[in-house]
């Protein structure tokens, strides 16, 4: 019951007119910022930090504003995924798989409303999880060493082939390309640079946002130009807006399962929201009896990644608040904000600064309710985007992407690289190679390699070290099942292989 009294105290902090206004403003700003592909939540928050200072906000108020921006941008990321097949940020990547096909089938608003509700469920439950369990869950990070992380990433990779419903070999090829791209840059374990050609811009590797925007947005423009605008991907039909109660009810189980998976992935430092949404999607696909519609507009394929990534965003606040370990790019920025506000994150945060922690949690609840209210009715406005002719919309979105990418590091090298990725994406799409696994390869490849290398340093090159804890053995078993099971299931159940459309 102590939790509730603390939360009540939190609401007392968060429910003043000023903070409420800040929460609403933050949600709106975040939604606007999230509309720029490439300018995801982390940049949105970073840009607004000086605003918090110049307004003279105190610690709690600043945190409330920033987390509202964070969540606003996270909610917004799904919109371009669904409407344009261009992920707004990396956690929204998986939403393109089913969200966009739904939109093409004339169910754009259903997909938007459903993903909005899934986001809300994921975020809300994760906030409760954060409140009740954070101090306990902080200990989970201590159980994960290099070997355990390696097994976890391996699990993610073992299921990558199953991401595409039509051609698993091409998906595996794409994942390998992603891994190869991930090799570029400074090797953490030796301090040497690899495949950079001596170019300083490549020292930190290829930023996955550059790859996302190139592979999705720029390649779309090339295809559009080639077909003189006829085979535009933006063939989304407009329809009247209703609330798809049936889909919401049907996917409620999906949302709950995905929330749990996303939250756990979020708690682990380094894994973050992208892994959360990916694992949520893949396990949902494995869980349901009939998964033949996945990748073709299954509502569950929209609900799973959206609930998963919001839950992971909540989960990522656990290591940030209790250990000072940023679980994602955005929490790294929030952490910096905390430090500048003279709050030292650490195991004592919950006891030393309860007003900050509980004010934050109350703010999260408020922000999510505000966002649900903003998002569901505003679908009407979002869908209006589609009445803009593709020959304006597509170059426009692309131009905005250029600005977003340029703002990442302020160098035109990233823009050139983005166009290179655009060309790559164009050819891959001609060859029907899925591009989502490339991004996942880039996102997860570095983490996986670093974990393996660290494990080998610690063990002195002894491979047995990888199988020494219960956690890693569990992940290894799951990875093997995840890799082998689809092959056997297909053979024994004689599921007809779906044909390429």
């Amino acid at each position, binding site marked *: 019951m102590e939790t509730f009294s603390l939360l009540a105290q939190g609401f007392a902090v968060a429910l003043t007119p000023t903070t409420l206004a800040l929460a609403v403003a933050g949600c709106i700003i975040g939604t606007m910022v999230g509309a720029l592909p490439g300018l995801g939540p982390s940049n949105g928050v*970073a840009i607004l930090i000086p605003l918090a200072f110049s307004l003279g906000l105190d610690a709690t108020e600043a945190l409330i504003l920033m987390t509202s921006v964070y969540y606003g941008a996270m909610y917004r990321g799904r919109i371009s995924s669904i409407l344009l097949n261009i992920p707004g940020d990396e956690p929204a990547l998986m939403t393109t798989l089913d969200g966009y096909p739904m939109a093409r089938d004339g169910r754009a608003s259903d997909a938007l409303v459903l993903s909005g509700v899934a986001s809300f469920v994921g975020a809300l439950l994760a906030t409760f999880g954060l409140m009740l369990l954070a101090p306990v869950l902080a200990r989970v990070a201590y159980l994960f*060493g290099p070997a355990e992380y390696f097994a976890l990433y391996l699990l993610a990779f073992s299921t990558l082939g199953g991401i595409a419903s039509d051609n698993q070999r091409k998906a595996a090829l794409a994942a390998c390309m992603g891994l190869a791209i991930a090799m570029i840059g400074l090797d953490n374990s030796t301090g040497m640079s690899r495949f950079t050609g001596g170019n300083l811009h490549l020292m930190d590797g290829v930023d996955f946002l550059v790859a996302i925007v190139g592979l999705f947005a720029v390649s779309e423009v090339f295809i559009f130009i080639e077909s003189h605008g006829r085979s535009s991907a933006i063939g989304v039909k407009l329809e009247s807006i209703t609330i798809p109660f049936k889909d919401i009810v049907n996917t409620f189980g999906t949302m709950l399962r995905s929330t749990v998976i996303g939250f756990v992935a979020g708690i682990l430092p*380094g894994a973050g929201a992208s892994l959360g949404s990916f694992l949520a999607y893949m396990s949902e696909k494995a869980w349901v009896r009939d998964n033949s519609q996945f990748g073709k507009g299954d509502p569950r394929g929209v609900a799973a990644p959206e609930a998963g990534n919001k839950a992971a965003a909540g989960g990522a606040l656990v290591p940030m608040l209790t250990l000072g370990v940023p679980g994602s*790019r955005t929490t790294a920025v929030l952490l910096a904000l905390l430090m500048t506000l003279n709050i030292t994150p650490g195991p004592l945060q919950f006891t030393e600064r309860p007003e900050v922690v509980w004010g934050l949690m109350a703010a999260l609840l408020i922000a999510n309710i505000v966002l649900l209210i903003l998002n569901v009715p505003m679908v009407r406005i979002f869908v209006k985007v589609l009445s803009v002719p593709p020959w304006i919309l597509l170059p426009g979105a692309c131009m905005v992407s250029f600005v977003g990418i340029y703002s990442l590091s302020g*160098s035109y090298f990233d823009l050139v690289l983005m166009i290179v990725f655009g060309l790559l994406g164009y050819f891959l799409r001609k060859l029907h190679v899925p591009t989502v696994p490339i991004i996942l390869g880039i996102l997860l490849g570095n983490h996986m390699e670093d974990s393996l290398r660290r494990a080998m340093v610690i063990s002195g090159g002894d491979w047995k070290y990888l199988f020494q804890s219960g956690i890693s053995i569990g992940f290894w078993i799951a990875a093997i099942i995840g890799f082998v099971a689809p092959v056997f299931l297909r053979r024994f159940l004689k599921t007809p292989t779906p044909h390429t459309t």
Partner: protein
Amino acid sequence: MVDHRDSTNPLEREWNKTHTTRLAAAVLLSLGLSSGLQAAECIAPANPGGGWDFTCRSIGKIMYDIKAVDSPIQVTNMAGAGGGLAYTHVVTERANDEELIVAASSATATRLAQNAYGGMTADQVRFLGAIGADPGVIVVAKDSPFQSLTDLIDAVKADPGQVAFAGGSAVGGFDHLKVLMALGRAGFDDITKVKYIGVDGGADAITQTIGGFAQAMTGDISEIVGFLKSGDVRVLASFTEERLPGEFNDIPTAREQGIDVVAVNWRGLYVPKDISDEAYNKWSDALAQVAASDEWAEQMQANGLAPFTKVGTEFQGYVDGVIEEIRTLSKEIGVIQ
């Protein structure tokens, strides 16, 4: 892809400047925060959230708050190549920009010493000053068998395979070098046998140490304050000349334990090379004012920084010395030839 445009033409320089002022600035301007005066810029050569970002944001803010500068200083994050991108940018494109300061730290000196900035050298900018330092520490989990730095070093000497160090910088980085310096002074020469894992930041390194995956953590004191207060870790030694002030006073220095290593992560600034002496003096004066301010004292205390003020030509001499020392050491351990 370095822009080699000649920047002497004022129009062209202006264009470059607009070109490199990033979206962040545009958003800020549109929010009406900037008063229309031409704002000075502080480049943090990393993403928001790290030490360089802190340097720019806090020093920039205090400079304006105490009226050492006339207009707010706008912070630009230019991440890449461990500060190398920003360094190249300043050297090649902004060499005479008098309204520019850049955050630097021991990592900047380390990378310059190891020739990690693509052939750029330390004499291509002017180091302005450092006004605080994060003392280097060696930390173990609370239940670790090691009670002192000498215990730990003896264990490494006995069997280097038994002790893995975790730190927030890559192999060859400052956190790694600190350990090697200490071991070297203690007479352990087989440096390539020392196990070091570089993870993503100090907090991650400490988590790995508390979890028992590494036996000791090498980092800066600011990275461990929260864990020290909660009692999850013990500090075996600080790499400072004297004991730290205040609550950290009971931490023994490495020197006291017979290992003569001083390694602090200073927080400071550099400016472009070709600015006038007048501008250089204006900035170093502003920096000295920040160093003397109460606001900075507060910031230092909150972030675990120890006083470390070297401004102007004195600092330039210090940096040159440090770079020389790191270069010698890096050659010894084979990080550079």
